[in-house]
């Protein structure tokens, strides 16, 4: 999930943007930091993944997408301002989440938060997260976390975009307020 505010300085360039980019059918990337940098990264990873998927003949693994993004973020760490979260579903590992903060480290995690608004919700998510939540509970967890971050962070706002990925498929939705 992500908020939808894109600002250039104090002007909100787009109040309904989509910060959850698709990398492949069931692999998505939440983008934060410089929009230009993260869009460039997601374009490269999408391109590499589509070629890779054709070569192996199967949907790519989430950890492959994460490794590709990490390689780009780490080798160009001086030039990039990008914090991303790669998440998705594959047959081998089921649902997985990888977080790649500034600097280019790649960490497999049960849940992740990122962006300027994330600083306000570390306590909240640590308190609310439980292992083994259902899809509905996960949606509620993500929605509440983003809502609370939007309430306190000036650079976050608009609508909440959610992408729910599972073995059955992908469901994109948005929630207002």
């Amino acid at each position, binding site marked *: 999930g992500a908020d939808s505010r*894109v600002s*250039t300085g104090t*002007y909100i*360039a*787009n*109040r*309904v*943007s*989509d910060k959850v980019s698709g990398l492949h059918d069931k692999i998505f990337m939440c983008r934060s930091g*410089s*929009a*230009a940098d993260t*869009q*460039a990264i997601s374009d490269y990873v999408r391109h590499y993944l589509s070629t890779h998927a054709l070569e192996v003949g199967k949907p790519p693994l989430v950890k492959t997408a994460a490794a590709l993004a990490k390689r780009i973020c780490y080798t160009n760490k001086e030039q990039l301002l990008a914090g991303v979260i790669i998440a998705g579903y594959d047959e081998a590992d089921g649902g997985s989440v990888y977080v790649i903060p500034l600097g280019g480290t790649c960490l497999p995690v049960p849940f992740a938060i990122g962006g300027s608004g994330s600083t306000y919700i570390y306590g909240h998510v640590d308190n609310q997260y439980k292992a083994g939540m259902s899809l509905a509970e996960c949606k509620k967890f993500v929605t509440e976390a983003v809502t609370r971050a939007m309430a306190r962070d000036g650079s976050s706002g608009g609508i909440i975009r959610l992408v729910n990925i599972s073995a059955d498929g992908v469901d994109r939705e948005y929630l207002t307020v």
Partner: protein
Amino acid sequence: DASARSSMRLLRGVALAAAAARTAATTLAAARFSGGVALGADSRATQDGVVADAFCDKLHKLADNCWAGGCGAAADADEVARLVALDLRSRRLGEHACDAAAPRAANCRVAEAAGLVTARLRSAPLGCGFLLGGVDSRGACLLRVEPDGASTNSAYASMGSGQMAAVATLEASRLGPDASRSRAIDAVRRAVEAGVRGDTGSG
């Protein structure tokens, strides 16, 4: 008056050589409707507070179905638009090299045009941004492309120094997803007017 406009363009050509004429002082506004995008712009190009060209054309045709409004450094915006339009045309000619459709192939996919613009902006430190709008088989699409190459998709947008005045009008016009062509054009016209009235750099 044609001769006045052509002499203004000569003036602009000379002025650009001497110092950077900018359309950063600009109002661009655009709104998507079912079946297309309405794109509007003011016509003032300034050079450090002096109007270099009062009737410049900031709307650039990239293909028959895709136009871009440019703001920022006028030279950069004009050149990027010109080169992207040429790239798109030469791709169409290449695709139809062996048949008679080549002369009439003047459309593009909006994502293709956006990709070409973004590639140029990412690779060089150019000081221009665009509101890029077009219609293709996937529908109408409006993209706001920042000078650093970031692009963002929305139903309506404004750009330039008059963007705040323009977006206030666009928000107030309450264009929904089923906006009609005439409502979108009217909203964009009023948005550019708001920019012209409320911003010193637009006129």
